[in-house]
């Protein structure tokens, strides 16, 4: 790993921009004052990998629907209809996902770890913060693979074009509501950033916490502004669909009706959950056996091979267990996802620096691959692992 030191950005500037997560007391150094140095060829390989894999995920998603694999994917049955309605209609555009990769530097081949397809984090960091580090250190912005903000803006414009009504009425302004629960600063950072991108892309936007949003099967999604109910054409909500299905089944039913009645578009679309469930990693292996970007994956521990046990709908590195070739536990993390099915993915060494920290690459995808960044940790990469930006050398 080639790492270079950079001058850190004063935390007050992050706060001015609305990025608060970084300054939390548990994670005083969330943004690393170093950058990972990669070559242009390595950067391009990450992008090609993400683009190729996304097409494979679409095939695997179709396979899951055709073979009714919801139980295998741990997807609540009450989400099946909304997943299929969104899958069949191109106006339900998949706004954003993040591929996590092992390898890609130090001569190690790129391998897919997973796709965070439903509610990916690290958007602020990859879109803005690593760019700010370059600026602050008088480095050129072209030395980074990072068009995330611009691509998301284009995706919002594309979303409007794909809409059954707004696509035909260019002069009309669609309304998008941005919501999250009112206790997660990290999710609120992301939600507010998306609101800003949509506004700049020409949407009327507003923000409301989820518990204050109004829903109706026959009328759609609303926010109360004084006495007036304002209707929204899009609803962005970084709340996992499986939580909606399990915790608020009534809402799942209303949202299904809203989609069937074409009253609103949800972001991300419900079918993102098919890509989010790690069961799809096994389907990918079945559909594309021996593919160089895939790690062998099964629902049983791999025979005579070190592997990583993960839960189908586990997040943030929780409930992860590393097993050696004999099946002994080498490392594990706690979590709240025990009830989900396990998948076992072939173990592969992550690139490591001189201090023994492992690096995982994240590549965002929104219609195309569009932004690269790294997380690092001495053990298993998780929610609070440090964010590390990147710098590309030999850029002509």
């Amino acid at each position, binding site marked *: 790993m080639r790492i270079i030191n950079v*001058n850190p*950005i*004063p*935390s*007050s*500037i992050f*706060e*001015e*921009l*609305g990025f*608060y997560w970084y300054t939390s007391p548990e994670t005083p150094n969330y943004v690393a004052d170093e950058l990972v140095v990669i070559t242009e060829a390595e950067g391009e390989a990450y992008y090609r990998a993400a683009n190729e894999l996304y097409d494979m995920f679409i095939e695997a998603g179709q396979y899951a629907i055709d073979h009714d694999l919801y139980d295998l994917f741990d997807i609540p049955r009450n989400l099946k209809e909304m997943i299929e309605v969104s899958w069949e209609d191109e106006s339900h555009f998949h706004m954003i996902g993040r591929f996590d990769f092992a390898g890609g530097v130090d001569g190690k081949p790129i391998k897919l770890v997973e796709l*965070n397809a439903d*509610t990916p*984090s690290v958007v602020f960091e990859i879109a*803005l913060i690593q*760019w*700010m580090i370059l*600026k602050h250190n008088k480095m*050129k*912005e072209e030395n980074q693979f990072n068009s995330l*903000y*611009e691509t998301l*803006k284009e995706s919002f414009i594309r979303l409007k074009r794909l809409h059954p009504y707004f696509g035909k009425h260019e002069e009309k*302004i669609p309304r998008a509501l941005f919501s999250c*629960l*009112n*206790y*997660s600063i*990290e*999710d609120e950072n992301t939600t*507010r*950033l998306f609101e*800003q*991108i949509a*506004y*700049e892309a*020409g949407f*009327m936007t*507003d923000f409301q916490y*989820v*518990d*204050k*949003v*109004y829903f*109706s099967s026959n*009328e759609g999604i*609303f926010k109360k502004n004084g006495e*007036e*109910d*304002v209707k929204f054409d899009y609803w962005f909500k970084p709340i996992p669909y499986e*939580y909606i299905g399990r*915790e*608020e089944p009534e*809402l799942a039913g*209303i949202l299904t009706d809203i989609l069937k009645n074409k009253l609103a578009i949800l972001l991300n679309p419900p079918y993102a959950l098919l890509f989010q469930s790690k069961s799809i990693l096994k389907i990918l292996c079945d559909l594309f056996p021996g593919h160089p970007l895939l790690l062998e994956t099964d629902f049983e521990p791999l025979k005579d091979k070190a592997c990583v046990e993960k839960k189908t709908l586990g*997040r*943030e*590195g929780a409930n992860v267990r590393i097993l050696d070739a004999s099946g002994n536990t080498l490392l594990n993390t706690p979590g*709240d996802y025990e009830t989900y099915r396990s998948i076992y993915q072939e173990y592969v060494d992550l690139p490591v620096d001189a201090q023994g920290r492992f690096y995982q690459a994240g590549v965002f995808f929104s219609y195309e691959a569009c932004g690269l960044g790294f997380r690092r940790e001495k053990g298993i990469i998780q*929610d609070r692992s440090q964010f590390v930006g990147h710098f590309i050398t030999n850029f002509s």
Partner: protein
Amino acid sequence: MDRDNKMLTIGGIFFLANTLLLGCDTSTDTDIQKPPQQQSDWESSNTMAQRKAGVITEVQEVSPGEYRIINEYPSTTTGVVVQKLDGSQEIIPQEKVRSLVEGTRSTTGFGLGTVLASGLLGYMMGKNTSVSPLVYANENIYKQSFRNRELIDERKKEEEKQYAGRTGVYRGWTNWWFGRSSHTSKSSSSSGKKTGFFSGFSGGMKSFSG
């Protein structure tokens, strides 16, 4: 065009971040605890910033001293990027934009202040009531400005409704991120719309995202 400042014209938050980083460069104290002074002056004196609505404008110098708008969109930040004839670039932060536009007397000609006053920025500042097609580099950008004007009008109307009746001065979008609202219990409104979902949900998680 200087490729290295491309992002400043892509999103208002990049423009704002750049301004904040420049303020930090000129300071002797690297860990600035307060916002740059000009920022708070602007915010307290200008309703445009208080209303959260701004405009990012990119102009091209087409002949010496004459400019056309080549990119323009409503944002939460106001700023101007000038692409000069000699290939250099001038970045004008929001606190300087106002005097540039306010100082404009004439609506003829294509001087920088006039062009800005005739576009969406001038519309927001009350310098014009209909944007002029002449100051745009092409018809598409001009047409887009019509839609953007409606967007700004709508946005202003709703924000006025939303903030009417609240105490305190609204000081830009980042300042109201953490105004927490209280829980509502799940209930049906008179029109049959349901609300209050996830109101009792506090799963102890820091975040849902991964």
